[in-house]
C-alpha cells in the first residue's frame, strides 16, 4: 500500500499552516465551510485529527468525500444547530464568517460546539482596501477579496478591530490571534492592534468561552 506523504510545508496556505500549529494531535475538529478539504487534509496528515467538514457547494462536498474526507453538504447559518455542545475540540471557520448571514449566531454556535473556536477572515481594514476605497471610491478588489461587489459571496465584511468587538460582544476570550501581512509574514495581535489592522491581509483568531 502506498503511504500518503504529506505535501512539504510551504505549499499550504499560511492561515492553514497556523491553524495546524494551533490544533492538538488527535483532536476532534469540525471545519465549517471546508471548501476543497485542503485544511482538513492537512490536519489529518499532520495532526491525525478526527476531522469533519461542512461545505455548501455540492461539487466540493462530493470531491472531499471521494478523497476520503468526512464532509456533509450544509451551511453554517442553518446546520450548526444540529450539533451537540462540546462535540468537538475545535470548531474551525476558515475565511467563511464574512459570507454568513448571521456571523454572531454562527460564532456563538462555534463556541458552543467546540471547546475552542478558530476563525479566520479577510481584513477589510487592510491598507490596500482603504486605499482603493479612498482613491477610487469603489468597493475594493484585492487578492483576498477577488470578487466584484455584485459577484462576491461576502455579506458581512469586517476589520480586525470589528471582529475583536464581536469577540467581546459574545463574551469569548482570545487565546491567540495572528494577522498575516503581505507575503504571509505573521503579525501577532497584541493589546494594540492599530498596525495589524492596517497591514494584515487576513487574521486567525483562536477563541474560547471565558
Amino acid at each position: 500500500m502506498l503511504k500518503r506523504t504529506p505535501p512539504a510545508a510551504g505549499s499550504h496556505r499560511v492561515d492553514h499552516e497556523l491553524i495546524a500549529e494551533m490544533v492538538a494531535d488527535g483532536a476532534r475538529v469540525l471545519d465549517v465551510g471546508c471548501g476543497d478539504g485542503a485544511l482538513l487534509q492537512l490536519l489529518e496528515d499532520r495532526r491525525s485529527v478526527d476531522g469533519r467538514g461542512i461545505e455548501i457547494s455540492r461539487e466540493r462536498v462530493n470531491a472531499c468525500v471521494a478523497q476520503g474526507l468526512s464532509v456533509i453538504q450544509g451551511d453554517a447559518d442553518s446546520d450548526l444547530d444540529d450539533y451537540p455542545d462540546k462535540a468537538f475540540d475545535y470548531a474551525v471557520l476558515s475565511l467563511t464568517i464574512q459570507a454568513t448571514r448571521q456571523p454572531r449566531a454562527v460564532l456563538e454556535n462555534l463556541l458552543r460546539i467546540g471547546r475552542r473556536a478558530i476563525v479566520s477572515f479577510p481584513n477589510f481594514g487592510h491598507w490596500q482596501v482603504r486605499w482603493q476605497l479612498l482613491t477610487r471610491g469603489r468597493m475594493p478588489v484585492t487578492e483576498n477579496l477577488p470578487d466584484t461587489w455584485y459577484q462576491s459571496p461576502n455579506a458581512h465584511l469586517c476589520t480586525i478591530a470589528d471582529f475583536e468587538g464581536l469577540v467581546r460582544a459574545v463574551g469569548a476570550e482570545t487565546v491567540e490571534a495572528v494577522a498575516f501581512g503581505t507575503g504571509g509574514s505573521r503579525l501577532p495581535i497584541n493589546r494594540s492592534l492599530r498596525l495589524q489592522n492596517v497591514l494584515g491581509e487576513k487574521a486567525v483568531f483562536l477563541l474560547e468561552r471565558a
Partner: protein
Amino acid sequence: MFRSGADQEPLVLMSGTSLPTFDVAYQTYGTLNDAKSNAVLICHALTGDQHAANRHPVTGKPGWWETMVGPGKPIDTDRFFVICPNILGGCLGSTGPASINPDTGRAWGLDFPVITIQDMVNAQVRLIDALGIGDLFAVIGGSMGGMQVLDWAARYPERVFAAVPIATAAWHSSQNIAFHEVGRQAVMADPDWADGRYLDQGRTPRRGLAVARMAAHITYLSEEALQRKFGRNFQERDALSFSFSADFQVESYLRHQGSSFVDRFDANSYLYVTRAMDYFDLASGASGQLSQAFSRTATRFCVVSFTSDWLFPTHESKAIVRALNAVAANVSFVEIESDKGHDAFLLEEPELFATVRGFLDAGARRRGISERA
C-alpha cells in the same frame, strides 16, 4: 446457502412469532483475509436478490450491481470479501412465503409470518456469525437495502465499521406506503392470486403482480427521465390507433417491465417485502428520537441521495444526517445530481462510484486493509 436447522436457535421475529428453521441464500465475491477484517455486506432492495455481481440464474442478465461490485470496481473484490444475501421473505432461496412450510408440506403462502427489516437483519446476523465473521468492514445498500444498513448500524454498531445507506430513509413515508398498498391490492385483486394459495393450485397472479410492478416502476424513475427516454413517441406505429393497445413507447416499456418481473418474482413475496418496508421506522424503536437510535455510534457513515429521487427524496437522507450530527457521529453526506430518479443508485453514476470508492478506500486505509486480500 446457510441453513439454520432445528438444532439451532429459532429466529424470533418482531411480530412475536418465530421461525424454528430458516435458510439464507447468499453469494460471495473476493476472499476473506486472515484477520477477517475485509468483509463487506451488501443489502439488496425490494426486488433485488443475492446475484449482485454475477449473471442472474433466472434472467441470464448481469448482476444488479455489476457496475459497483467486482475486481477494481468501487466495491473492489480484489480487496474486500463481499457477501450478498437474499433477504428473509425473498424468493430466490431464502425462506419466504413461497418456501415449504415444514408443518404442512405445502408452500407457506399467507401463513408465513409478517416480517420486518429488523427480522431480515437478524437473519443476516446469523449468516455472518456462521461465516465466522465478527466485524463487518462495511454494510452497503440502496433503497430497502439502505434501511437494512441503517438497522445494522443502529442495533449492531460495534460490528459495523462503515455504513453506506443510499437513496433511503429512516422510516417509510406515507406516500410510499400508499404506493405499496396500490401494488398489494393489484396482486390481491387478481383471481389467480387465489387468496394467496396460487402455488398449491399451479396458478400465478401474473396480471396483478405485473400491474403492481408497473405502478412501482414509475416511482423509481423521474418525470424528466421518462420524458427524455420516451417523450410521446409511438410504439411501432405512425399514428394513434384509437384503441387501448400500447400506442406509446412508455406503455410498451411498462408492460414489458411488468411481465418480465412476474417471471422472476413471487407475488406473495412482493406482499411481504413491501410490508416490511412499510413497517420500518427506526425512530419508533428509539423513543421517537432518531438520533437516539445512533447514540454513541463509532460507525463511519456515508449517506447518499439523488436530486431527482422523489421516492426517497434528499430531505429524508438529510434527516438521517441531522440525527447523526446530533450525536456527533462521523458522517459524510453527498447529494448526487441525476435526472434518473430513485433508480439512479443502480445505474451508471460516476459521482456515486467516486463517492463510494473514496469513502471505502479511506476507511480501508484506517483499518489497515491491504489493497489485495
